[in-house]
């Protein structure tokens, strides 16, 4: 993205994170430009979720800083942090829906919370906005009164996405958005994200190992490993990097190989 240098929505510099007695990040630097989605890949346990939590201000770094929409998330005042939180949405790996609330109430939750800051929407408006958000993620209205415990994996992801978008986030943090979905649902969810991203002009940080999701949503890919960003570039560029994890990740699966042979009978 040409303008990523000019107007970064996320800027992480010299980030150092310790969890327990493990140094998870020694020196992480990255930037995400406006309208761009940066895909982050890395081996399991390499600190991807920790990075996302850092950027969202849920973890405290040992040193370094994370700036989101021009605000240093770890040094922001309470009101700055609140303004910031309204502008981003987080899609947690397992959805993290409130298990005691119906899907409807989960999505309405951030809207109703506005009342505590003197920004209340009338309940009528909240209800209709919630239905609109659910329609945006193609959630069937009939299922809206279900509790999270009664949903399938795909429905959980949709509901969580609707909740993340409830306050019209312009920035999305996605932790493995398609993990745990079957390939068809994963593709549907990827398409949904792409559609909404175009419509709402979203930027984002997406952790994913799903090549399909990376290819269709990730404008650039960053590889996290050994405590820092090993490389950044397009999917094709990153695939060339000589690193055992990357080579493993990009080796065609047996299924892909056989499908390839099926459609290219000569090989």
């Amino acid at each position: 993205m040409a303008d990523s240098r000019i107007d970064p929505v996320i800027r992480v510099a010299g980030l150092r994170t310790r969890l327990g007695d493990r140094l998870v990040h020694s020196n992480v630097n990255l930037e995400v430009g406006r309208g761009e989605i940066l895909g982050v890949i890395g081996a399991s346990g390499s600190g991807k979720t920790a990075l996302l939590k850092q950027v969202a201000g849920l973890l405290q770094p040992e040193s370094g800083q994370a700036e989101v929409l021009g605000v240093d998330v770890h040094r922001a005042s309470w009101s700055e942090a609140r303004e910031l939180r309204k502008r981003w949405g987080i899609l947690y790996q397992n959805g993290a829906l409130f298990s005691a609330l119906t899907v409807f109430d989960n999505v309405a939750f951030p809207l109703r919370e506005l009342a505590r800051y003197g920004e209340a929407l009338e309940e009528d408006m909240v209800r209709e906005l919630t239905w609109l958000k659910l329609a945006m993620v193609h959630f069937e209205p009939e299922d809206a009164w279900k509790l999270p415990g009664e949903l399938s994996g795909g429905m959980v992801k949709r509901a969580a996405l609707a909740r993340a978008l409830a306050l019209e986030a312009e920035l999305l943090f996605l932790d493995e958005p398609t993990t745990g979905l079957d390939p068809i649902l994963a593709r549907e969810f990827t398409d949904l994200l792409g559609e909404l991203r175009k419509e709402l002009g979203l930027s984002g940080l997406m952790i994913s190992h799903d090549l399909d999701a990376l290819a269709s949503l990730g404008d650039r890919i960053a590889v996290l490993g050994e405590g820092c960003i090993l490389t950044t570039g397009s999917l094709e560029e990153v695939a060339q990097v000589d690193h055992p994890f990357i080579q493993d990740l990009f080796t065609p699966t047996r299924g892909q190989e056989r499908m390839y042979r099926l459609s290219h009978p000569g090989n």
Partner: protein
Amino acid sequence: MASQDPSVQIDRDHGRTRVRPEGRWTLIADPDGRQRASEALAEIEQPSQAEWDLRGMEALDSAGALLLWRLWGKEYPAELQCHEQQRGYFERLAGLAGRIPEPPGRWWHPLVRIGEGLYHALQAGGQMLLLLGQILVSTGYALRNPRFLPWTELSATIYKAGLRSVVLLGVINFLIGMVMAYQMGLEIAKYGANTAIIGVLSIAMLRELGPWITAIILAGRTGSAITAEIGSMHLTGELSALRTFGVSPVLRLALPRVLGLAIAMPLLVVWADFTGMVGGMVVADASLGISPSLFLERLPHDVELVNFWIGVAKGVINGVIIGLVASYYGLYAQPSTESLRRQTTASVVTTLSLVLVLDAGVGALLAGAGLI
């Protein structure tokens, strides 16, 4: 910033009204903007008959779109020109028409509530008996196939429920013994029958207070923990995982807890009796002039041993009740935090009610049998 505020341009010519909203209509978290937008829109007569041109808007969010949609009477206006992105909102809103389901209703009539409560109580009673049956069958099975006996869980229960309660239970019973001896002593001293404290205190402690205090502490400490522990396994899917491995939750989770409590509780009752009576002895010595040696000497004469055994038996029964009720409410929880809260509360309340009812029942039965 004024140019960015939501505003509306209205042109009227030859009886036709053209409306052109301008500025930023990102209203979801902007109460001032909502106010301004509503005021601007209020000036339009017959908004749904007008020609709308949204292409001059700097931004539009779903709250802005919804505001317009409601103004139009929840359908498209006579004429609408807008960007593709903006149209997305209206298409979804139009698609929702007639598809919004009513929230599932609830009956609030008091009679209905009473009936519901009664039904649920009966249902819980039935299911609890069922669980008791399953536990008995599991026990029989495990006794014939000892490899299925969950030893680890059993010893863990005895350790966590039994050993870990010792200090708390000891301190509380010691204090209660002291308080009881002091209060009773005041009355007894009036009649000069100081040595009567030995029999009165000991019988109260052995038959009622010891088992009762133990049951209260264990219901609060262990019963609630068991319900929360098993109940949260619904949230994490652990119960299904157990079943996948062919492990019966009744055999692996409920049985060792019930059995463990049935073993640990009588021992704790003995400990509670002991600490309570030591507390009583200390006070009897200080305020009634009854030395511990006199106390111990008179004890076998004043108090029949059966009182002790009744208390211990109550301990076994209470242990089974606590384990059974706690496991029941855990196993029958729904995968939600709200259900977990409800089940944990119900577990403690039901346990204590049952303990009390059974205590009274056993008392009446023993009195009938002349064993008082």
